[in-house]
């Protein structure tokens, strides 16, 4: 469009495409990169749709029987369903005539029975059901939303901190640089997982926000190192001297002039850290220090799946594993393609 405009006023000027356009062209030539990009876009769509309650809004409804098998396997043979812990509990309750809670239990059972009669529980579900008969497919979508959201926001937080710290340290140098380097060495001398667990211990509360804060506040070190190095390199270049000459302030030089020139480094690191943080969130949630009990994430699904597998119910494990493997592989390949596209010198 600019070219058309330039021609219209009759100015002969050779327009050269910018960095991002060139990178996009290079990216489009990379078939693996493009395919992985589509996977990432698909997961983004899934996350957004689930976040807006367009899909998987009623994931917590108990639509199937306990441990309903996937449809392609057919309904379960009735006698095995006795293995479900709920049925044990009920039978034990009926066997004891002196149960002080019997009356209350009967009432609750009548109330829940009246509710569940209205909606029949399906014997099979698309990708099986969990212990309470919730649809594993919907749960996986909801888990995708949680895990991806945590990974993305935590990576944004970490990248933001790293950019600010790295810009200040690299641009000003001197004691500011010393201070941030000291800060960096303090954080990196504690192993990553140990630091995360220590912070989880002192915060002592679960929740999506807590996980984001833990991961974001501890994960900035790797990006900081690179951003600082880039700022060291850029601050002595001519265009910054020129900016100084026209009277641009320090903040303007740092964030308006230099930042766009180092943004490709940050973008690749951001993408790399999303994967890292998704993996960390899964571990944290699995251990029970992550998302709250009313939220489902891949980590909490794997936690449930562990005991289910011993009973022979493998589908929740498979669903969470597949979803995570697909996203992580897609994101990793996308990151590689992004790096190649943004740094033509690498090839």
């Amino acid at each position, binding site marked *: 469009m600019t070219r058309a405009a330039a021609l219209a006023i009759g100015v002969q000027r050779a327009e050269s495409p910018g960095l991002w356009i060139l990178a996009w062209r290079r990216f489009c030539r990379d078939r693996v990169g493009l395919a992985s990009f589509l996977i990432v876009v698909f997961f983004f769509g899934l996350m957004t749709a689930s976040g807006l309650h367009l899909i998987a809004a009623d994931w917590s409804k108990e639509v199937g029987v306990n441990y309903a098998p996937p449809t392609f396997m057919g309904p379960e043979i009735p006698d095995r369903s006795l293995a479900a812990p709920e049925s044990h509990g009920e039978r034990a309750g009926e066997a004891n005539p002196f149960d002080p809670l019997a009356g209350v239990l009967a009432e609750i059972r009548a109330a829940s029975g009246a509710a569940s009669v209205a909606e029949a529980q399906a014997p099979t579900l698309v990708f099986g059901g969990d212990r309470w008969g919730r649809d594993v497919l919907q749960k996986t979508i909801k888990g995708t939303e949680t895990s991806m959201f945590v990974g993305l926001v935590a990576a944004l937080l970490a990248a933001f901190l790293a950019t600010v710290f790295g810009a200040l340290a690299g641009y000003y140098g001197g004691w500011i640089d010393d201070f941030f380097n*000291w*800060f960096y*060495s*303090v*954080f990196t*001398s*504690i*192993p990553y*997982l*140990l*630091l995360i*667990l*220590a*912070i*989880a*211990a*002192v*915060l*002592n509360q679960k929740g999506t926000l807590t996980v984001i804060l833990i991961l974001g506040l501890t994960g900035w070190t790797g990006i900081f190192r690179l951003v600082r190095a880039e700022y060291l390199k850029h601050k002595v270049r001519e265009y910054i001297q020129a900016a100084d000459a026209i009277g641009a302030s320090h903040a303007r030089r740092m964030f308006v002039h230099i930042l766009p020139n180092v943004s490709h480094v940050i973008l690749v690191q951001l993408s790399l850290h999303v994967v890292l943080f998704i*993996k960390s969130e*899964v*571990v944290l949630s*699995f*251990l*029970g*220090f992550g998302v709250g009990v009313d939220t489902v994430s*891949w*980590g909490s699904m*794997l936690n449930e*799946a*562990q005991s289910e*597998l*011993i009973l022979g119910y493998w589908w929740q*494990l498979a669903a969470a*594993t597949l979803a*995570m*493997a*697909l996203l*992580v*592989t897609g994101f*990793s*390949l996308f990151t590689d393609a992004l790096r190649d596209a943004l740094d033509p010198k690498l090839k």
Partner: protein
Amino acid sequence: MLAYVTRRLWQTIPTLLGVVLLVFFLFTWVGGDPAYLLAGKISNPEQIENIRRQLGVDRPYHVQLWIFIQQIATGDFGESWATNEKVSSIFATRLGPSLTVLVPLLVVDTLLALAAAMLVAYVRGSLTDRMVMIGCTVGQSISILVYIIVFQYVFAYQLGWFPVQGWGKGLAENLFRFSLLPIIVGVIVSLAPDTRLYRSFFLDEINQDYVRTARAKGMSETRVMWVHVLRNASIPIITNVMIQLPGLLAGAFLIERFFSIPGVGREVILAVERSDFPVIKAVTIYVAIATMIINLIADLLYRVVDPRVQLK
């Protein structure tokens, strides 16, 4: 050399002080009043006041910080809040099991990854190389949790080749009976990323002029790869192995938890679950100190491997 080591040790003091401050800040300000955690549900003001006095949290912050530094220097972190076991004895008894699993794990993983990486780097661009790389990418994308759950289920629970979990008395029994499956799982999990990483280190070296010279001199391919290329690629490899060493002291959190190995990692997870601050504080501080010492040893090793490296 001695002057260098002395200077480096001198330089770690500010970092160490930073770690102490960070841990102190986390557990004193962010962690809230431990008396409430300890007193639990049956708390009356007197009891809480009593606990506060015992822990010393009623004293000013600088006094508390000084107590903390004294604890670090003497290694006496008092007793665990949950079990009343001495923290120092927790460390002493849990370190053995952690090392029994992690030392063989690190050795086997490093050797296998080196061999695999050298092989695929040698046949770079071939079908084998590409298949291995795709396998690594996919293998890396599966959570470590899934590996542990599935391996434990298939090989220990279903096939009964290994005990599902547990820990014995003697070193031989622990190493060859209880540690085998954890080590196998650990190797499989770390093999994929390490192979990818080491392959890239080898690829950086394999196109250098000195490799061509060595071949032109008529050296055997084995000697070129294992002596010339390996030695030059070893600096980043040492870095990567050294990074993993402090983790040996912190234990393998997930593996120890799943296989009920009474190591440091499992103890840390238990401590986090019980809000057992003294244990977490002690582990964090000592692992940080170990990290700094290991970093120094790594720098000295670079010099041994590559005489061109200047220690400044």
